[in-house]
């Protein structure tokens, strides 16, 4: 149900964009107003979100330690998984962010009633799918810089060359285009067919996937099948980033779909779970060093509490302490 509603929503947005692109008076709206509004929502929203997180302090040093602590000199400590130095934490975070370390641990549990026996098996598909999607996404976003700057930076050209190393079809087939769609379909399939994941999935989980699929598919269609006027696209893009937008005569309906969905994504991102990309950097179970007995962590709102003092305790149990022959402060 959630999946269906979100799918329909994306179809409706697509339809509106498609229709809007046909009507010339709508073009200013779709080409200029919408991207600016979306970008503004994205920037303001994201900054707000990050500031909001950062405004809550970290009262305790609570890393999840995933390896041997630094203790005695002859015991080898796990300097990344149980990092006690800044460098160790930086490396741990880098591996987490760039390679999805924790997801790599993933396994699958099954139960056999006879025995009973719990069986655990390797399960790296989620890791692979997630990694494939995120890296392709990054490459594709960087690749789009070619529309916003003139001349196109060399690293983008180099990236494209690698991306297109199969050298099939014209225009050249880019590996990331295939990978991102396959990865998204895998993630969607998993959400729909794994009963556990289906059970936890919300409308917004499907919405994100359909939205990204819509963007990827419209992009691919434009590149390989229904060519749009790339010169016009670049003219529009440069116009937008230099704050002197020009609305080109015609680019092609697919382009409006693509641009509208991208705008939707930008505006939606800060208000959805997709902000996880910013949140991971701040996660206290990952970004703190396991040095809490070496260096005192200060809690900015630490406050005095009511305790039961030794004097109160001794007073209450005075006779019993005395009878037991234990020393007293006050005889």
């Amino acid at each position, binding site marked *: 149900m959630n999946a269906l509603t979100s799918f329909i929503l994306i179809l409706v947005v697509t339809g509106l964009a498609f229709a809007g692109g046909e009507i010339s008076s709508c073009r200013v709206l779709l080409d200029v107003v919408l991207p600016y509004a979306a970008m503004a929502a994205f920037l303001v929203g994201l900054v707000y979100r990050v500031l909001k997180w950062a405004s809550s302090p970290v009262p305790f040093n609570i890393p999840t330690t995933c390896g041997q602590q630094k203790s005695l000199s002859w015991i080898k400590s796990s300097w990344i998984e149980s990092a006690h130095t800044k460098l160790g934490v930086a490396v741990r975070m880098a591996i987490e962010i760039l390679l999805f370390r924790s997801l790599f641990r993933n396994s699958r549990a099954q139960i056999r009633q006879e025995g009973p026996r719990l069986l655990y098996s390797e399960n790296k598909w989620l890791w692979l799918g997630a990694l494939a999607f995120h890296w392709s996404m990054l490459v594709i976003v960087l690749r789009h810089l070619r529309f916003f700057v003139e001349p196109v930076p060399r690293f983008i050209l180099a990236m494209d060359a690698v991306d297109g190393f199969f050298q099939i079809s014209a225009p050249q087939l880019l590996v990331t285009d295939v990978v991102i769609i396959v990865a998204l379909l895998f993630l969607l399939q998993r959400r729909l067919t794994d009963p556990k994941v289906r059970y936890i999935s919300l409308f917004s989980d499907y919405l994100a996937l359909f939205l990204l699929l819509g963007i990827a598919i419209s992009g691919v269609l434009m590149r390989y099948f229904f060519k749009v006027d790339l010169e016009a696209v670049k003219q529009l893009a440069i116009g937008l980033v230099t704050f002197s937008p020009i609305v080109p005569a015609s680019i092609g309906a697919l382009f409006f779909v693509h641009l509208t969905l991208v705008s939707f994504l930008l505006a939606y991102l800060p208000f959805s779970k997709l902000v996880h990309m910013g949140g991971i950097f701040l996660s206290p179970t990952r970004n703190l060093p396991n040095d809490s007995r070496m260096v005192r962590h200060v809690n900015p709102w630490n406050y005095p509490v009511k305790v039961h003092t030794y004097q109160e305790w001794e007073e209450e149990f005075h006779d019993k302490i005395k009878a*037991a022959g234990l020393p007293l402060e006050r005889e």
Partner: protein
Amino acid sequence: MPGAPPKPEELVQISYDPPRADWRKTRFDFQKGTYCYSAAAKNLRYLDLPNPRDWQPYEADWKLPPNWKEIILKGMKERLEKFRSFRLFMDICVRCGACADKCHFFLGSADPKNMPVLRAELIRSVYRRYFTLAGRIFRGLAGARDLTEDVLKEWFYYFYQCTECRRCSVFCPFGIDTAEITIMVRELLNLVGVNTNWVLEPAANCFRTGNHLGIQPHTFKDSIDFAVDEIEEITGVRVEAPINKKGAEILFIVPSADYFAVPHYYTLLGYLMLFHEIGLDYTFSAYASEGGNFGFFSSHEMMKRLNAKIYAEAKRLGVKWILGGECGHMWRVIHQYMDTLNGPADFLEEPVSPITGTRFANARSTKMVHICEFTSDLIYNRKLKLDPSRNDHWKVTFHDSCNPARGMGLLEEPRYIIRNVANHFYEMPENTIREQTFCCGSGAGLGTDENIDMRLRGGLPRANAAKYVRDKYGVNLLTCICAIDKATLPTALEYWTPGVEVGGIHELVANALVMKGEKERITDVRGEPLQLGKEATVNA
């Protein structure tokens, strides 16, 4: 008291595939054996906690204060502003499901709301409704739901089916730690007087007498003296066990179960024998007679209130530093919280072993050393005479207790000790030990009899891993360094994996330690006969 739990065959008639349903519309009931009873009013009163009254979870009317909803929402807002962990973990979950089958309660019960992600969604849905723009506008579509009494009851049920073991946080790509969320929800529930007796009675006891069991100073001394007598009987050596001794070099803190419960007690014998043998200048405290901290299972504030005794007593007695015994959540509190809560301990010195001269630089600020760090250093520096063959009747495995593993990283020290005091040591499967260790199923204040069904379910993954080494290597002793493990794993293992006993690391040390002037040992510290024939061959 509930009746006998169902047979193991019945308990595992479960499927990990949840039904096709909207979880927000599924209901649960308070079935016997799956929840803990409410806290007695006297305990709330003693601790100055709000809304003391008589009530039980299975009753329809929980006698909440009329403005309970307002109190909870205000409490949420306050905690969102005070804890970055809480705010972040409410926002960034993508529901990838990697954590789903990592929780021992899910693996044992297959209740989908025991998937860590869904346990968190129980409060995330309320967070979205009242604290996010999308949730306020789009409600259900944005995964939001109203806070109702049913929701509150659901929180109570499922956040007392989490042992704060942090296993899910090892697998989460964002490090979302359900323990943090559980701590917050339990704090919120405490604001309206919804709490369990198994947590608050020990807390009240500890506040008053100094320990969870409510043992008063004279009884404390009696049980330590009793241990001293018992050691003399076994070894022929009379050890000393000073209590409240001013000017001692080291204050020694243990969980109270060590001097009042079995099999913890054998570990206590080990400490006492060890300290005598090396001539350690130490003292117990009858005031700070608890290392464990059930306050931690209630709120940050209660944790601080109970923990304060340790530094206060160290200061009063004028010791140089503090040594701590085998305990799980005690060590999470000491390692990650104590210095922040009740420090700085600038009246203490950086811990140095008086026997080996080793400087425990890793504890230079908190000034408290784990007994396994201390003992492994003694062994490494060859300060102990050990006869591991005196543990030959044990085929040993080691269960990493959750908190020392995932909240500290104490993994190698206990293993080093075991390898030096026992000849037969076998590890359980890789994904059930070290940082991936499984909880006993009874931690965080859930280890009470009325909760037995849930405890056994939660204990299944650990017991099942023990079964693997029992069947493969004949393992008959599971060692661990946690008082709750020692109290509750015997029940879980007897149920799922009969034939495997539970013991502490320093129990093995007690058996292996060759003491000056000792008589020939005929039994181990449990009074079980040693395999003397085998020992002879080893020595020959």
